[in-house]
């Protein structure tokens, strides 16, 4: 984030050569625990104009480190399609004309056969990235995607098809023996969690059973908060299609399915996934109750390199606009955008990728699409800072609602979601974790700003370490966090960081992200929920979540508290005192 802030001048076009693309491994990348294969990709987002940042698992980051590189800073633009090839201390730029137009799977196999090494790991873009779809993602392997904020679009704008890595250099640790022992302890700690054990069987889909039963799932875009009779997309349904689970580098949980579809559209399909979010994107949000449809759509977006959430969010929005008569078949190229219509879903995914007809309206994301369709369509768009929210309905859960609003990269659950709020944990226990008093009722506003603030710091540090959020306090309460991170950092690198120092680092990262956004013109006015959260009450669900909407006044109060916790003023701008405390001077940009 420091690099991002300092490499860019404010106001540049994210698709211009001036934009920078940063690929970074973490401090703990390569340790044998906590899913240490993660890599962070950052840039100015072409989707939102705010911080662009997406984290990706798989095997690329350790391979990049073993090839001798911790960070790549990519500027400018290639004249014609190229890919970057890094291996054992060397870096080359190779022509990629033959890869242009190829899907994300084929591109990776072609690079392997071109360079004659099956162990090569690549970050690639698909057709969506090439066609500058503003929510195109970056992918590696069969499953992993840096999905959000359009990092694939930035790669496409630089004519950069892929980054391939192969390394046989050592990753050294200061205390290797102790690190091994401690990593075993960490694995045991993670696997003791019921969440991790369930995730090793059904992946992140396990979350769906609880959230849907409760009534926390947005359905038909945002009309219902529960998918009625949605049992055919329960996680156990995956047992019909799966041939086993698959894990990222150094991960004992292995939370993704390897699945096969022998018959049906686009078959035969071998693919990996889907995540909980894809279940929402192609299931609940568009009111589709068929697991098979979700699996096909998941495969298609992965093949083309589209962000699953943004794609599903936009299609669900379009379907509601069609239902309400705001758009008609004239605009949709004759397509009847009916709820749950799988043919329309597949067609739209392809149209978006190719920027064809109605697809070209959706291909630039919410802001430009609203401008084209008309102002009245904005009310139905479930987005923050121009980015689609996932399929969770946060009306009954103020803490989760605050998290999507304050997220620096737009509506998102991976920046600050305090998911454990849903467990109704005892208040003294919550105080022990979060260091302040708060209600254990997830419907309450009391003390919840602290939860979001704390999670934001934790996730910022987790992403910097290159470990997986699912192996810290996200869905599991007794998971490694500050103290464990501190010990791992010490054993791996010899550096000593206390819990409070790590929290300061998290604060510094998040505050720089905030400063980046402020420099681009974002402020408190952009930390706002879609109107529907305040106006429409949840129509169904368990009695305790039914008939609830967000209370505007209480929500604004919560936002004030949240700013105070970060040391930002009423408008969400970091105060001089905070900047001094964190050692961030108001530096001129582009100093590097």
């Amino acid at each position, binding site marked *: 984030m420091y690099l991002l802030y300092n490499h860019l001048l404010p106001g540049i076009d994210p698709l211009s050569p001036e934009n920078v693309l940063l690929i970074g491994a973490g401090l703990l990348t*390569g*340790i*044998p625990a906590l899913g240490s294969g993660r890599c962070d990709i950052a840039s100015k987002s072409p989707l939102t104009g705010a911080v662009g940042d997406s984290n990706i698992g798989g*095997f690329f980051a*350790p391979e990049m480190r*073993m090839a001798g590189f911790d960070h790549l800073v990519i500027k400018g633009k290639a004249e014609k399609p190229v890919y970057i090839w890094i291996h054992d201390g060397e870096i080359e730029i190779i022509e990629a004309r033959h890869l242009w137009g190829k899907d994300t*799977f084929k591109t*990776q*196999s072609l690079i392997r056969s071109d360079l004659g090494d*099956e162990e090569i790991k690549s970050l690639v873009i698909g057709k969506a990235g090439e066609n500058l779809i503003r929510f195109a993602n970056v992918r590696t*392997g*069969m499953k992993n995607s840096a999905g959000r904020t359009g990092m694939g679009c930035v790669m496409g704008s630089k004519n950069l098809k892929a980054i391939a890595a192969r390394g*046989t*250099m*050592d*990753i*050294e*640790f200061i205390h*290797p*023996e102790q*690190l*091994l022992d401690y*990593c*075993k302890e960490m*694995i045991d700690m993670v*696997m003791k969690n019921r969440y991790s054990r369930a995730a*090793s069987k059904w992946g992140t889909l396990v979350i769906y059973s609880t959230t849907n039963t409760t009534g926390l799932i947005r359905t038909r875009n945002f009309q219902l908060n529960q998918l009625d009779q949605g049992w055919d997309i329960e996680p156990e349904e995956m047992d019909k299609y799966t*041939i*086993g*689970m*698959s*894990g*990222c*580098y*150094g*991960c*004992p*949980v*292995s939370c993704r399915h*390897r699945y*096969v579809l022998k018959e049906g559209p686009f078959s035969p399909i*071998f693919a*990996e996934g889907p995540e909980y979010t894809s279940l929402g994107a192609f299931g609940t949000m568009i009111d589709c109750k068929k697991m098979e449809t979700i699996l096909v759509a998941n495969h298609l977006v992965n093949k083309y390199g589209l962000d699953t959430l943004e794609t599903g969010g936009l299609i669900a929005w379009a379907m509601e606009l069609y239902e309400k008569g705001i758009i008609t078949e004239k605009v949709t190229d004759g397509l009847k955008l009916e709820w749950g219509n799988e043919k329309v879903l597949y067609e739209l995914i392809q149209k978006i990728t190719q920027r064809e007809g109605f697809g070209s309206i959706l291909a630039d994301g919410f802001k430009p699409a609203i401008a084209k369709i008309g102002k009245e369509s904005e009310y139905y768009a479930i987005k923050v800072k121009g980015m689609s929210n996932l399929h969770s309905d946060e009306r009954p859960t103020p803490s989760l609602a605050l998290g999507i609003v304050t997220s620096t990269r737009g509506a998102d659950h991976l920046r600050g979601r305090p998911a454990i709020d849903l467990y109704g944990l005892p208040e003294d226990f919550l105080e022990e974790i979060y260091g302040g008093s708060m209600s254990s009722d997830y419907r309450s506003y009391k003390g919840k700003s602290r939860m979001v603030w704390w999670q934001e710091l934790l996730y910022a540090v987790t992403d910097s370490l290159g470990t997986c959020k699912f192996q810290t306090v996200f869905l599991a309460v007794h998971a490694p966090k500050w103290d464990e991170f501190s010990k791992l950092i010490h054993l791996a690198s010899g550096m000593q960081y206390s819990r409070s120092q790590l929290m300061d680092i998290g604060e510094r990262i998040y505050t720089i992200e905030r400063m980046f956004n402020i420099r681009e013109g974002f402020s408190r006015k952009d930390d706002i929920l879609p109107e529907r959260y305040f106006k429409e009450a949840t129509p169904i669900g368990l009695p305790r979540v039914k008939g609830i909407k967000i209370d505007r006044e209480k929500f604004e109060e919560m936002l004030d508290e949240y700013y105070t916790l970060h040391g930002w003023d009423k408008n969400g701008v970091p105060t001089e005192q905070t900047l001094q405390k964190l050692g961030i001077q108001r530096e001129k940009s582009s100093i590097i």
Partner: protein
Amino acid sequence: MQKILFVDPEKCTGCRLCENVCSIFHEKVSNPSRARIHIVKWENAGLYIPMVCQQCDNPICETVCPMGALSRDEKTGALLINDELCVGCKLCVMFCPLGGIGIDKNRKILKCDLCSGDPLCVKFCIPGALQFIDANAINLRKRRQAAGKLSDLMKKLLDISI
């Protein structure tokens, strides 16, 4: 009874923790290219097969070694390379039909020694694709797995619906 490092590819999730801990334990650095075990993958088909020395009963490596550098540890059952005798001719690497013996970039021969009877890869393999178990247990397990598939057929034939 001596235990055997048993590989069950169906359970492997391809996370490569085994490779990572093997290199840290033996070489004190994280570097799968210096590990004694390797997961061979066909990513596009979802196939992951861990490949590691099987400590053969009639080891070809021992037969072809011109220096007689290989010998069996009677306690653990592992075939060990005597570094003082090894001249690095790599005949063992060439002839092993399983790719069980490797060589690293420093020309060092890499071969599984079962970590002196307590293989670390097994300890870190949460899905249980790697196990260190009695030979008898392997037979029974494989037969039960095979019988399980047969029993499904039998149930259908006999129309037992339990």
